[in-house]
């Protein structure tokens, strides 16, 4: 049995912008939402120009792209950012010294600070279940702790429009692998050589 290689497909046609993914992620991973710091975020954008019928509203979910060549990992001086064999890029909070080189290197703006202040507020906000103990430069983990139990990431599990699909690229029968192989889903800024594992199905063809 081959090691899985996890990836996500996001369909911009079916995201309704309910932000349930943001809520589910922040509860699952205890992110400092009071400082507008999210592991995943849904942008509410307008595309097109002209009359109101010609302008479309686009919801654009974003998260760490769990790159195969993650620049955040290569610049990390302590080894706090590391990659599992299954493709998931993780952060060891204890080892992270918070130099923010990863945030500078990330083309996807996926990293954010967790400060001492955030740790204090986290204890107030998340109560006795608060598990963060060290400041770090945090990011999405594809909910690795859930995936290892055979569950889907919290954002995928909660998505009402099935706009987020999570699967194994090494399994040709997996829906995600099939969509990526079809070419309909494309990664963001692939020209940078990061080899991202989050793919987007564009909503433009429907709108033209």
């Amino acid at each position: 049995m081959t090691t899985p290689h996890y990836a996500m497909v996001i369909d911009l046609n079916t995201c309704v912008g309910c932000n349930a993914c943001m809520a589910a992620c922040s509860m699952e991973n205890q992110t400092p939402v009071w400082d507008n710091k999210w592991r995943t975020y849904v942008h509410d954008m307008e595309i097109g120009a002209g009359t109101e019928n010609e302008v479309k509203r686009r919801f654009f979910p974003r998260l760490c792209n769990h790159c195969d060549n993650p620049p955040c990992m290569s610049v990390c001086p302590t080894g706090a950012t590391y990659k599992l064999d299954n493709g998931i890029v993780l952060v060891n909070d204890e080892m992270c010294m918070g130099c923010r080189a990863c945030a500078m290197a990330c083309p996807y703006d996926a990293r954010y600070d967790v400060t001492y202040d955030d740790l204090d507020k986290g204890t107030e906000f998340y109560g006795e279940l608060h598990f963060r103990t060290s400041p770090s430069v945090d990011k999405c983990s594809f909910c690795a702790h859930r995936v290892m139990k055979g569950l889907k990431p919290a954002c995928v599990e909660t998505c009402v429009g099935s706009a987020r699909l999570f699967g194994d690229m090494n399994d040709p029968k997996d829906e995600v692998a099939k969509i990526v192989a079809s070419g309909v889903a494309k990664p963001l800024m692939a020209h940078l050589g990061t080899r991202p594992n989050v793919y987007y199905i564009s909503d433009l063809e429907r709108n033209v």
Partner: protein
Amino acid sequence: MEGMFYSTQELWTWWIAIYLFLGGLGGALVVVSGLTNMYVKEHKELVLWANISSLIMLSVGSFMLFLHLLHHIAVINVLNPMVLINKPDAWISWGTQFIVWMMVWSFVYTYPYLVDSKFWRGIPIIGGLIGLFGWVGNLSLRFHKLIGWLAVINGIGTVLYTGLLLQSFPAVALWHNPGVPLLFIVSAFSTAMAFLLIALYVFIKNPEDHGLKVLFERSDVILIGIELLIIFVFFQFTTYGLESARYTAKILWNDMGWIIGFVGFGLLIPFIIEFRGVTKGWKGSAPIVLAAILVLSGGYLLRHYFMYAGVYERPYPAINSTHHLQMDGSVQTQ
């Protein structure tokens, strides 16, 4: 997914620019003074000025970096030399080790001169401590050239690292290109020459140093000339380059601080003053000292603007950035 967004960053700002400036200058001072002392002219005072200044600069720069860390205790992970085996791909790992070992070896190299220095021995407490560890000076003299080369090699590494650190961020066209390390190397050595000229003209004031002053002035003229050429190359690269580079061009070439402050007062005017000094000479030392001060100011401005003008290109706006760039050069603030 055609619409792209352009923004600068607010994570590494003026304090990183100061760190990069002091790192480059401090590293180059150790290299120039070490090689001068070993192969051009033995000069204890020059080594004292260069290496003690470098030690202070690197201490200040590193402390500023340390203050801005989120998790201070975890810095132990990069201070451990094993980091080079665990994380050889990270330039901060190399840079930390280069800086630490450059400070150690340059201090040991300088120690015999500290022991002989009336000024340093005359300072209360410090003078006593220097005498207490006099054996370090004796040991240093036995292996002086080897220790000098260890300091020089780590100094070269420190100078090189400041540019390679920026180059390792692939998302920003201004930074992710081979011109940045070259520019920072040339700038570091130019500022080191300027610093040593100030030391020689203002503080050391030894008439026997005429030859050394001429050497440093000529070297600085050549370095400033090369820096001007590299800046011209960057003008071409940003103006006619990738989209994010074009946004950088809009920032830099619409900013009088960059055009007049850095290119004008930081490069062109000191180049003219020093070129005149090399070809026809000056009666007094004031013009060269003025040029050297301008070169040092330019060295900081270069890094300051490089940090502020790095532009990210993304298919969505940056979440926590308040500045979003428009192609007309204006900045939209959230």
